[in-house]
């Protein structure tokens, strides 16, 4: 994998995992979610 590939993959994983964790935390601290 080249450098651009690493950057693209890392950015994508950070974005997805970061958003998932953020949403989980938000869901567990709130009630009116479907």
């Amino acid at each position, binding site marked *: *994998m*080249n450098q*651009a*590939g*690493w950057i*693209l*993959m890392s950015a*994508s*994983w950070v*974005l*997805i*995992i970061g*958003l*998932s964790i*953020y*949403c*989980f935390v*938000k*869901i567990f601290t*709130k009630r*009116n*979610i*479907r």
Partner: protein
Amino acid sequence: MAVAGSAIGLGNFLRFPAKVASNGGGAFMIPYFISLLLLGIPLMWIEWTLGRYGGGFGHGTAPGIFHSLWRKNRFIKYFGVIGIFGPFVIFLYYTYIEAWTLAYSFFAVTGKYHGLATQESMQSFLRGFQGLETNQFFHGIGYAYVFFVITFILNIVVVYYGIKGGIERLCKIALPVLLVFGIVLLIRVFMLGAPDPAHPDWNISNAWGFFWNPDFSALQSAKVWLEAAGQIFFTLSVGIGVILTYASYLSKGDDVVLSGLSASSMNEFAEVIIGGSIIIPAAFVFFGPAQIQEIARSGVFNLGFVTMPLILNKLPVAVFFSFLWFFLLFLAGITSAVSLAQPVISFLEDEFDISKKKAVVLFGGIAFLLCHAAILFLKHGVVDELDFWGGTVFLVIFATIETILFGWILGMNNAWDEIHKGADMRLPVVYKGIIKYVTPVFLVFILGMWLWQEWLPVILMKNVSVENRAYVLGTRIGLLTLFTALAILVKIAWRKKRYALERMR
């Protein structure tokens, strides 16, 4: 949570890897992520909000919701027909692919593909199962058809009685188990190394390169952009009309900002971190860069069925894990299939005042007949044709219309207030500009670029082999007929309502 269940499905584990592979691996990923940020996530918020807004006027599907938004325009409801047409078309082939996952879980238990260790044998197995050839594994389409009938009946039964009780509990367990199992498989894929000594360059490092190394020249291809946007829509279930129907049942106090963002992020986790990261690298090390693209192009859902048994056969207790993988996919497929059926059923209930049970029976009867086009003419490219129009082009058109309605007809200030009703968090203000300007311009640009580059060859079927042209043309005529029939139903429903109103006066 229901939408996360509908969003996580076969699109993540079967369609996404094939789309990445057939569009040249890393070449696909930049348009894919740009589409996620500028189209997918904004459209999630738009659809959740529009659905809840329309629900307040007693409409659960796009024709009624669009009409509620722009009452002065008497044609706008016909644009909403796409929001019923799209999920119906996808349902027609999705059920058949879902049936394959059930069949493969059954074959895992009976050991039918146990011991097959090469790409040729697995591909031959799949082709035999699909009825494309007669071989030592299958002598016709019988197995595939039996599993289709079982799957179809199960889907309709679940739609008829609703996802409640045992099935709801099963799906709630299945989804986390699928994700955990996916992580285990991901670790196994990381340890594959270079399984074919004859091809040391078919190794896991190059496999990740194939998946992620960007190819900037591909950014000029309208088809790659359209396919990437189409995959985002398909996988998030946006641009289909499904979320509109779900969200129409919400109350004003429900948080659509967080619901939309959670469903998107969970879906992307399942798609990129699990589905793509297992199947694409594994397919690369087993088949090599040229073959992986050839398999993906042979059918939009084929790659997962050829690749996964090869990986699963390398695990201890392969029978159990193979069964588990395909059965979990089947359960994920049920929740998605049920959500695809909902818009048509809600349309019949809302606009024709017929009972849910009658609507389900009517839908089931018509869908059962129409599914046969996907089953019997698979080898002539009918599933790919349905997927291209129903699962890609019409999604982009529908998304363009609803974005314009949301940002320009409802008005961005009203839309912004509507999104935030019941929401804990505020969206970044930059999304106000993105939703109003960037998303519609981007959608129009993709469509325009595609029309410019591909319109004529697609219409003239230049890329379709001569023997398949009659079938592809037949599929297109069938789609046009279905669309026209739905548009006529909308006209009848509105005429009935108008007469009823006039009588009341």
